[in-house]
């Protein structure tokens, strides 16, 4: 049977002339191989993006906040610095989760020549113990930018429980094609070009990022636009402090090794009927209680904003984000409520 198949496949290729075969093979190899070649020769593919590390080194922060868009929409670093008289920096990445936060603590905060006194990590509900959430797939190429050459913890979770052929293929593509890590710089480059053309043709200087933030502020969105609750896919697992179960113990360990005080700050989700009901769900309450106990036992701080009557619905933009216009208001509220974090 096998021989028959081989004969048929050979027959199929015999239909082509020698020149055709050579060209077809060369064509496919050239198309698939050129990006690999360019990755290792002319293209400047970032192995580890040290932009944030250089920024933090320059800023010499005493307090560092880490998180996803929840953090970005809530805190204004310069206002916090001004209010507290301490140097405050923010490491924020939209759509990031526990894997990326671990890398932020380990590869940015712990790698600083002058360590900050305190790190405060913003999270929602069960994000800290869902290691697979926002880790692989389309998040992978950006995750690699925060990774050093040797990352056994991240590798472990990428392979766990079994990445399957799809997970294996994702990683193979990223490894074979380091050019995929050029996505963000390339997209920025196109944006800069578009901005340059616009400024040349319209003649005045504008900060388009700021302008776009204002235009697409969450408060300007239609009420029927789906909100970014984000974690619907997370399973309602019980809290598990096993280092093989989540990045959380590794985050705690990295901060402890660096001699940095670590706090976890659970942000209050949008306080509407559905999310309030969700926040009061018994398994989640139990989870949060267990998380608090475990962190306390590790000497790590835990603050839960959920239920704070001053964080009212009118502060929110879409989903769990605070509206851009209210970021300063929220920042002030945050400072007044948690002054001890800045002492």
């Amino acid at each position, binding site marked *: 049977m096998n021989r028959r198949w081989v004969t048929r*496949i050979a027959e199929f290729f015999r239909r082509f002339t020698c020149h055709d*075969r050579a060209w*077809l093979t060369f064509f496919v190899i*050239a*198309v698939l191989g050129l990006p690999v070649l360019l990755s290792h020769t002319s293209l400047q593919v970032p192995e580890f993006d040290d932009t944030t590390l250089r920024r933090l080194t320059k800023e010499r922060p005493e307090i560092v906040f880490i998180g996803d868009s929840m953090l970005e929409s809530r805190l204004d670093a310069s206002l916090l610095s001004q209010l507290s008289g301490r140097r405050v920096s923010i490491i924020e990445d939209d759509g990031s989760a526990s894997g990326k936060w671990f890398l932020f603590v380990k590869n940015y905060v712990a790698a600083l020549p002058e360590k900050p006194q305190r790190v405060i990590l913003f999270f929602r509900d069960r994000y800290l113990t869902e290691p697979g959430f926002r880790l692989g797939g389309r998040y992978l190429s950006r995750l690699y930018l925060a990774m050093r050459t040797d990352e056994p913890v991240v590798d472990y979770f990428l392979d766990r429980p079994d990445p399957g*052929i799809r997970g294996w293929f994702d990683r193979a593509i990223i490894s074979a094609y380091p*050019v995929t890590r050029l*996505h963000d710089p390339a997209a920025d480059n196109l944006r800069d070009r578009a*901005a340059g053309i616009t400024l040349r043709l319209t003649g005045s200087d504008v900060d388009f990022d700021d302008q776009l933030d204002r235009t697409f502020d969450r408060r300007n969105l*239609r009420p029927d636009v789906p909100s970014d609750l984000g974690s619907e896919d997370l399973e309602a697992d019980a809290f598990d402090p096993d280092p093989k179960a989540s990045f959380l113990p590794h985050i705690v360990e990295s901060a402890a090794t660096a001699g940095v005080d670590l706090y976890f700050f659970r942000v209050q989700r949008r306080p509407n009927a559905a999310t309030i009901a969700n926040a009061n769900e018994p398994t989640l309450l139990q989870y949060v209680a267990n998380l608090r106990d475990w962190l306390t036992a590790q000497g790590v701080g835990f603050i839960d904003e959920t239920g704070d009557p001053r964080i009212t619905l009118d502060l929110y933009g879409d989903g769990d984000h605070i509206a851009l216009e209210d970021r300063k208001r929220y920042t002030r509220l945050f400072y007044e409520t948690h002054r001890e974090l800045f002492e």
Partner: protein
Amino acid sequence: MIFHSLDFVGFFIAVVAVYWALPHRAQNLFLLAASWFFYGYISPWFLGPLLVATATDFLVARGMTRWPARRKALLLMSVAVNLTMLGVFKYFGFFVENINSLLGAWGLGTFEPALSLVLPVGISFYTLQSIGYSVDVYRERLPACRRFSDYALYVAFFPQLVAGPIERSTHLLPEITAPRSITAARILSGLQLMLWGFFKKLVIADNAAVTANKIFALSDPNFALLWVGVFAFAIQIYADFSAYTDIARGAARVLGFELMENFRGPYLSQTPHEFWGRWHISLSSWIRDYVYIPLGGSRRGPARNAINLFLAFAVSGLWHGAQWNFVLWGLYWWALTIVYRAVGVESGPVFARPTSALRAMVRIAILFVLTCIGWLLFRETNPEYLAKFLTLDPRTVNWADFQTAFFLLILTTIYALPMLIYDVLCRLPAPWIARWQASIVPRRWIELATACALYLAILVLRSTTQADFIYFQF
């Protein structure tokens, strides 16, 4: 299974590897099994309606051969079964919603439907293809297919099953029943077409979608921003749908089939008539041949012609979706067609002479603006927002708003540039372009360089927010 997934890449490589090692009969059976797997991969129960449509039209066509006296009744049965299926799955919710609105308006209360159905992907495409076959057999344009597996493959052929092109039985069935040959040039050409499709989907359509979706998510966009959003949607829908067609045609070509063209640079059209000869050609020609011409076409005087056009465009609009905005969109194109005919605007040669070139460019620009107005009707499903958007005052746009809108316009155009250049160079009926194309030697190296650039661009510039193909929802 969706084209822009690793699942499909693996599936396609496996199918091609096995397929070309098989003899012709086995190739068809294997392709049928692969096609059913491809379709059932999305949801196995989707296979149910597909099999019903396939079995019905196969048996109806065989019946027409056996009982010629009952041909008409059998044709009606085929049409009824297919349209009922389409009606139940696609229009039931729409029907209930409108009945409820009427009952509500008359103060009679509303009712909750007992049925809540998921629309099987691609049902609008394969039911038309299946009806087309019955009509073709009825009109004796081709004999009824003898083998069920051949006919089932015609309906389920995986490259075009989910979003077309809607093939004609007179074209695809002979390709299925006859042995297929393959050359290296055909394989390469198919792979290039697929690559071009992936580029258009992942780089152009998905990046344009980011801008369009953001703007259409605003509750109160200004005039400039709204129309940039519409422009981005125009780019998105064209890149997205034509990408699907290109991937389908490319995949079919690698398997030895040649599917029909579905797009020929629609935004270069000068008149609505020309637009529908360049946009979703397989649907517009289907409606022309199976709806418009049977109704009498233009043979029964101007008034009847206008009515026939009205019905054809209404069907086209309703085919796109069970919502009034699609009907409105179809009727908008009907109105444009009538107005253009009344004014007597015809498509002229482009760049043949300087004066005609200028005239043609102005006509292209005007029709593109009108097309964009149509896309607003198509995109905005909420009538309140639609009314608000259509009455936005351009004088309220301040300079900063204008700059932001212009920036997004340029950004969208930068992503779309390869597709726009391709259309101008390959689709504009200009003599100098034809001469230039003929003078390109050696073409092979240019094709290789283009393929390398496209693949590199897909790896680097593909949008991080990927969406399904828009036409999947229809």
